C-alpha cells in the first residue's frame, strides 16, 4: 500500500457522499417546485380548456323581409334593432313539427342562448343582402346545453332536480342524431366583453382594459423610474438625503397594493376628479406601484455598468450628461427594460388596487380609450369566480389561462430584449 492512496478512502467516501446528498436535495427541490407548477397548469388547463369551444346548433334561418324590414329600406341601423326571435322560433318549428304546445315551444327556444337573436341581428346589419334569403346558421346554444354536450351535467340526478328535463334531452338527442349540434371554436370568448350569459361572455373587454391600463402605467412609470434611477445613481452625491430616499424607495416597493388603491381612490378620484373605473386611473395607480420596482431594477442595471466605461468617456472630456446618455444608459438599457417588463407583468396581475378605484364594475362594452369605463383581466377572473353559473366556472379557468399566457409572453419579451441588447465587455 503506497503512502498516498489514489483510490478511495473512508474520508474521501464521506466527502463524495456529502456532495451526492446535496445534489439530490437540489434535484428534489427543483422537482417539487416544478411539480407544483405542473399541477397548477394542468388543473387550470383541464378546467379551462373546455371554454375555448362552444356548443352551437345548426338552424335553417329564413331572413323574412316581412318581419325584419317591411319597408325594404335595408338600413343597417334599423336592421340591427329588428326582432329576430320569431325567425328562430320558426326554424325550430320546422325541425320539431311534433312540438305543438306553447309551453314546450318556449322550452324548445331556450335550448338556444338568449344572445342567438343578437347574433342574427349582427349578421343582418353587417350584410343586408341576407334579407329575404334562407341560410344554414350555427347559433350559440344555451349554457345548459353547452354543459351537457361538454359532459359536465350529471344525468343520474332525479329529473325534477335537473335544469334539463327528459323532453329537452330527447330534443337534444334528435339534434345530435341529425348532426345539428356541434362544439365549435369559441371565437366569441376572444372578441366580446362580459355578459350575464356565460355562453355570450368574452375576455376581450378585460384584455383591452388591461392593455390600456398597462399602457398608461408604462408611459408614466418607465420614464419617471429611469430618470429617478439615473439621477440617484449617476448625479446625486451620496448624502444623508439620498440615503433616506433610497430607504424609502425600498419601503414603497414593499407597501401592499391595496394601500396604493386607497391612495388612488382618495387622490385621483377624490381630489383630482378623474373619471371613475377607467384605465386612466387604473394605470396611474399601477404606475405608483410599479415605480419603485423600475427604480430599483434600473439602479441595479446602472450599477452593473463597469466604471471603466464612464472613465473612458470622462477621460476624453465628455461631460457628465454626455457620459451618462451616450454610454452608461445604453449599456444599462437591457437591464432597465427587463426590470420594467417584470414590473409591468406584476402590474398586469394586480387586482386589489383596481377594485378600490371601481374597475370592478360589470362592463359589457369593449373600451375604446383610456377614459372609457373598463375592467381588467385579473378583476374579470375575480368577477367570474364569484358567479354561480356553471358556465362561468370554465370561463374563470380559461381567463386565468389567458392571463398566464400574457404573463409568460411578457417575461419572454424581457428575456429576448436582454439577449438582444446585451453587449459584451
Amino acid at each position: 500500500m503506497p503512502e498516498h492512496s489514489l483510490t478511495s478512502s473512508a474520508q474521501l467516501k464521506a466527502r463524495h457522499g456529502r456532495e451526492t446528498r446535496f445534489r439530490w436535495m437540489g434535484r428534489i427541490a427543483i422537482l417539487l417546485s416544478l411539480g407544483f407548477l405542473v399541477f397548477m397548469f394542468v388543473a387550470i388547463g383541464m378546467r379551462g380548456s373546455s371554454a375555448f369551444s362552444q356548443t352551437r346548433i345548426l338552424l335553417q334561418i329564413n331572413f323574412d323581409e316581412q318581419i325584419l324590414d317591411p319597408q325594404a329600406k335595408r338600413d343597417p341601423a334599423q336592421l340591427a334593432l329588428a326582432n329576430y326571435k320569431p325567425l328562430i322560433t320558426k326554424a325550430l318549428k320546422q325541425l320539431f313539427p311534433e312540438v305543438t304546445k306553447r309551453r314546450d315551444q318556449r322550452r324548445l327556444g331556450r335550448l338556444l342562448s338568449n344572445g342567438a337573436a343578437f347574433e342574427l341581428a349582427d349578421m343582418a346589419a353587417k350584410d343586408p343582402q341576407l334579407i329575404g334569403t334562407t341560410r344554414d346558421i350555427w347559433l350559440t346554444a344555451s349554457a345548459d346545453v353547452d354543459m351537457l354536450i361538454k359532459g359536465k351535467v350529471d344525468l343520474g340526478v332525479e329529473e325534477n332536480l335537473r335544469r334539463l328535463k327528459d323532453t329537452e334531452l330527447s330534443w337534444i338527442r334528435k339534434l345530435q342524431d341529425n348532426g345539428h349540434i356541434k362544439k365549435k371554436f369559441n371565437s366569441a370568448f376572444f372578441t366580446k366583453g362580459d355578459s350575464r350569459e356565460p355562453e355570450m361572455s368574452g375576455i376581450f373587454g378585460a384584455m383591452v382594459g388591461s392593455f390600456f391600463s398597462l399602457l398608461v402605467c408604462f408611459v408614466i412609470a418607465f420614464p419617471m423610474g429611469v430618470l429617478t434611477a439615473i439621477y440617484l445613481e449617476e448625479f446625486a452625491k451620496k448624502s444623508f438625503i439620498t440615503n433616506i430616499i433610497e430607504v424609502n424607495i425600498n419601503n414603497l416597493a414593499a407597501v401592499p397594493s391595496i394601500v396604493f388603491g386607497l391612495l388612488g381612490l382618495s387622490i385621483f378620484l377624490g381630489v383630482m376628479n378623474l373619471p371613475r373605473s377607467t384605465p386612466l386611473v387604473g394605470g396611474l395607480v399601477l404606475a405608483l406601484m410599479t415605480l419603485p420596482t423600475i427604480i430599483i431594477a434600473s439602479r441595479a442595471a446602472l450599477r452593473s455598468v463597469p466604471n471603466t466605461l464612464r472613465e473612458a468617456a470622462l477621460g476624453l472630456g465628455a461631460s457628465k450628461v454626455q457620459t451618462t446618455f451616450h454610454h452608461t444608459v445604453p449599456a444599462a438599457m437591457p437591464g432597465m427594460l427587463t426590470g420594467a417588463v417584470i414590473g409591468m407583468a406584476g402590474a398586469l396581475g394586480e387586482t386589489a388596487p383596481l377594485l378600490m378605484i371601481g374597475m370592478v364594475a360589470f362592463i359589457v362594452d369593449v373600451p375604446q380609450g383610456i377614459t372609457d369605463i373598463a375592467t381588467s383581466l385579473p378583476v374579470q377572473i375575480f368577477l367570474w369566480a364569484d358567479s354561480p353559473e356553471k358556465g362561468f366556472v370554465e370561463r374563470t379557468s380559461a381567463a386565468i389561462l389567458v392571463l398566464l399566457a400574457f404573463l409568460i409572453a411578457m417575461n419572454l419579451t424581457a428575456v429576448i430584449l436582454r439577449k438582444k441588447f446585451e453587449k459584451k465587455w
Partner: protein
Amino acid sequence: MTKSSVKKDKPAKKSKKNIILSAKNVDVFYGSKQAINNVSFEIPENRITALIGPSGCGKSTFLRCFNRMNDSIDNCKVTGDIRFAGQDIYDPAVDVVALRARIGMVFQKANPFPKSIFDNVAYGPRIHGLASSKEHLEEIVVSSLKRAGLFDEVADRLHEGGTGLSGGQQQRLCIARAIAVDPQVILMDEPCSSLDPIATAVIEDLMESMKENYTIVIVTHSMQQAARISQRTAFFHLGDLVEFGKTRDIFTNPKQTRTQNYISGRTG
C-alpha cells in the same frame, strides 16, 4: 474668485518654458485618509515621465490629479497647486471638460466603448466639435489610428466592434482615441499591466515615437519598463514622493535608501 484669479495672473516661471505640468505641495485625501503627502515636482514637455512605486503608494491617485479624474470620486479632496502650462487646473474658472481635451488619459484596463473601431476614435472629435465635415472626421480617425500604429491591422474592419480586438490592439485603440482629441499631455495608468511582453513592446515603441508630439506621464509597476522608456522617473512610497530625477540617475545612482531598496528588489 477674484483672489484666485489674481493668484493665477502671477507670471509662471518663464525661464523653464518647457515645464508643462507642475505640482506644488499637493495633498490628496480620501475622506480622512491621506493618500498623497505634500508632493511637489515638475514634468518637462515632450518627455516620458514614469511614476513608479509599490502598490498602494498613491502614484495612480497622483496621476489622476492632473486631469481631475478624482473629481468624480465622492469623498476625494485635492489641495495644493497643480498647473498645466502655467494655469491652475483647480481654479474654479477652469472647465474640466476643456482640461481633459488637453490632457488625455489611457487606463490600466483597455476600455474601448462597445461601438465600432471608427466610432471609438471619432467619439472625442465629435463631442468637442473638432471635425468640420465628414471627410475631416474620417481623416482625423485614420491619422489617429496611424499614429497609434493600429491602422494597418484594422483598416479593413473599421466598422466592426472595438471590443473584438486583442488586448494589445484594444489598448492601442484607446491610445488612438485619446490622440484623436489632439491633447498635449497623455496620462497612462499602467497601460501594459494586462498585456503580454510582445504587445507591451509594441506599445513601448509607440510611446517612444509619440514623445515627439506629446508629453507622456506613465504609471508603471515594472521598473524595467520605466528604465527602458522614460527620461524622468518619480519614485513614490506610502504617499510620499521619495525621489525624482533623470531616469538614468534614479536607476544607477539613487540618493535615497528607500529608492535603492526598491530598485534593487529588497522591498516593495
